Each structure stands twice: as C-alpha cells, then as structure tokens.
C-alpha cells in the first residue's frame, strides 16, 4: 500500500491551478452533469472531462483503472435498468429502448463526473488537498483528521508489517485454529498498544512546541496565470454543455 505523497507534482499543460478552484470546479461539475438530461451534452462532457484530466497530468493507465471499476459496477446494473421486465420467468429478456437510453445517460454522467474528479482532485497530493479544504472553510478537525491519517497510516502499516514479519520469522503460518487466532489477536493488540503510545507521544511533542488547539497553515495559495487558463477552459467547457442542452 502506498499513499500519494506531497511531491507527486503535476506536470500537465495547464500547470498548477489553485487547488481550491479545482475542488469547487468538481463540485459544480457534478451538479451540472446531474442536472443535464441531453445525452449529446453528456457525451461532450465526458470527452471534455477526459481531455481536462489528461491536460492536468493524469496518466492513461490510472484513468483506465478508475473507469474500469466504475463501469464494472454499471455493467452489473445494466440488466436491472435496461431490461423491460427483469425476472427469471421473463427470459429471454428484452431491452427497452427508452430504458437503454436512460442507462446510457447514467453511464455517461457517472463517467464524466468520475473523470473530472480524478483529473482535478484525486491527483492532488493529500497535503495540498488538506490545506485547500482548510482554506475553503471545511471544519479544521476534518481536514486535520485527513492529514494525520495520511501521515500515520503509512507508519501503522510499517509497524504491522514489522510485527507480522517477526511472527513469521519464528515460524508462524496462518492456519485455521486457536493458535492462529491467538497470535493474530496478540499482533493486533500489539499494534493498538503501539498506536496509543504513539498518539500520546505525538500529543506531547505538540505540547512541547506550544500547541494550544490551533493549527496554522504556512502555505497560502496565490492567484496565478494558471488559474486564469484553467478558469477560462472550464468556463468554456461548462458553457458548451449548457449550449448542447438548451441550445
């Protein structure tokens, strides 16, 4: 397991726009697509989201993997949604044209939103995302919970690996039986105790540097040329979706 790191810098052609703008753009995009009924507007939206994600530096393989997961799920829903009467007795099933069209719209919508979110926000490193959320007036507790998780999940993972490896080096093998359960119990217990101890030490370390319940943010985002380029592109794409819907 690996976590996105703050240095996973993007190197897309649009270059780094303000992360807050990206988060807001994805939120607005989601609302827009959900409210858009026209399939051609949705198809355009999907294509635009793909290009934008690509321009912001998302890799094809990552986008493909994310889409595969979503569309696998949609494939399961297909018979439920597009068949006229979905029952074993109604075999062979017949596709209903209107329902198939509806399904296609749902699929386009879902992929369009996923690609936009993937390209704009998911590629953002967690540190940036956390800070952007703080600046967007997200409750600081939630933002810090996310940042702390990002920092310490890796360490928990390392500690678990170390404990499990130590057990295996002394011949432990996972089987079905009381010995395995007891050992796993001891390992998990060990991990919990270590985590509690660590949490306490972290609080002490924070106190030592004058922590009094407040986190200050060093980095401040500044308006830059990248924001203008991104803003114009995004406005053009949004406008086009609206034109295709109502034009």
């Amino acid at each position, binding site marked *: 397991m690996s976590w996105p*790191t703050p240095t996973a810098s993007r190197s897309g052609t649009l270059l780094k726009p303000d992360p807050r703008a990206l988060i807001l753009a994805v939120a607005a995009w989601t609302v827009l697509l959900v409210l858009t009924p026209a399939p051609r507007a949705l198809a355009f939206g999907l294509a635009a989201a793909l290009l934008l994600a690509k321009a912001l530096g998302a890799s094809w393989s990552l986008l493909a993997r994310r889409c595969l997961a979503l569309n696998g799920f949609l494939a399961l829903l297909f018979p439920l949604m597009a068949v006229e009467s979905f029952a074993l007795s109604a075999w062979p099933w017949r596709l209903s044209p209107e329902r198939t069209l509806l399904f296609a719209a749902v699929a386009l919508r879902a992929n369009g939103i996923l690609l936009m979110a993937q390209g704009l926000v998911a590629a953002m490193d967690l*540190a940036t995302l956390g800070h952007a959320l703080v600046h967007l007036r997200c409750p600081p507790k939630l933002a810090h919970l996310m*940042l702390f998780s990002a920092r310490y999940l890796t360490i928990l993972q390392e500690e678990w690996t170390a404990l499990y490896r130590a057990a295996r080096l002394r011949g432990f093998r996972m089987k079905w039986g009381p010995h395995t359960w007891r050992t796993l119990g001891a390992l998990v217990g060990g991990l919990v105790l270590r985590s509690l101890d660590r949490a306490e030490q972290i609080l002490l370390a924070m106190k*030592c*540097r004058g922590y009094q319940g407040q986190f200050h943010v*060093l*980095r401040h985002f500044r308006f830059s040329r990248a924001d203008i380029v991104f803003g114009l592109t995004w406005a053009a794409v949004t406008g086009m979706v609206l034109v295709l819907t109502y034009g």
Partner: protein
Amino acid sequence: MEPLFSLADIVFGYKSGQPVLNGVDLTLTPGERVALTGPNGSGKTTLLHLLVGLIRPQSGVVRAFGRERKTEADFRDVRLRAGLLFEDSDNQLFCATVAEDVAFGPFNLGWARERVADAVTAALKRLDIAHCRDRSPNELSHGEKRLAALATILAMEPAALLLDEPTNGLDDSHRETLVRTLRETECALLIASHDRTFLDKLACRNLHLESGRFKQR
C-alpha cells in the same frame, strides 16, 4: 549567571516499584554543554521529560528560567524556551510536509507569517535539508527525519536544547551536520546519549545516571 534549569532532590517513579530518579540535583547554565549518560532504563528520558513538565516529580523542586515550575500553566513557556528532541522522530514530525512541521512551533510563538517563513528556511538550511522542504516526513530517510525534527525545535530559537539520543540512526554525513550545528549553536545543550565519540566531540560535562542518582566516574 542564573541557571536555565535547576533540579533539587527530585524523586520520580512510575506506578510500581523502585523510583527511577531518587534524589537528583542538576543545574544547566546558559551556553553550557552537558552529557547525560547511563545504562538503558536509568531515567535519562524521564529526566528530560521532567524538565519540560511532561511528567511531574513526586517530590523535589524544578526551577526553570528563574522561577519554580509546578503546574501545567507554569511549564507552557518553559517548553517554548527549551526544545526537546524526542527519541522517535516520527512522533515529532506530524505535519504533511517538513516545512509545515518546522513552522508549527514558530506559529505557536505568535510570530508573523514572514518571520515564520524566514525561520523555516533558515533552520532547514542550517541542517542541510533544504531539499526536504516540501516533502512529506514519510518520504525522508531516518537521518533526514532526525535532522528535520531538530529543525522543528531550532526554528523556535530556544535557549536550551534537550536531546534524547540525537545520533540514533544517523549516517556519517548527517552526523557531521549534527555535530557542526550543535557546535555552532549558542544554546545550552543537555544530551542523553550512549554515543561516547559524539559526546566527546562536543566536549561536554558528563553526568552519569545510575540507580536513580548521578554517579561520579
């Protein structure tokens, strides 16, 4: 010169059994370098934690920066003026990037943003880890983590540094940086360590803890 810290007849024990510290006296004057040695479990870490009030003695007097310290409120400003380096750097680096971590203390001191930014840059440069600035602590090597943790307290411009096993896991070049930085600093140093050669390089007065007391060697 008035000492930064003075401990008088300190007794401290964890819940059960023998007290870890049993009648310890200590003074640390400005600019002084003191080595704290002793076998594992002899109470070196406990002593450092007592100085900044993370734990309180069962009896004895802790004086710091000119007055007696008893309550949590008493110790708050002691912690801002004496930087404690923890044994495990992962516990000390809890922010998303090294720069944020170094900025944490100075912000809590109430400094203005520009001053904080300058202090961060200076501290990282001083320890030769400017390249780690925007990296997550997760990505640093053991030695870099150690130096980054030191940077977080150096940035606060403390009068004293209390270092718990500072050389743990350092390779030669990081060690050199550490020695150079500690030699240059005007802070008083209290260093708990097993590392004889390191302590010799800093020419410290030695205090040896054993069975709860300081022993002459």
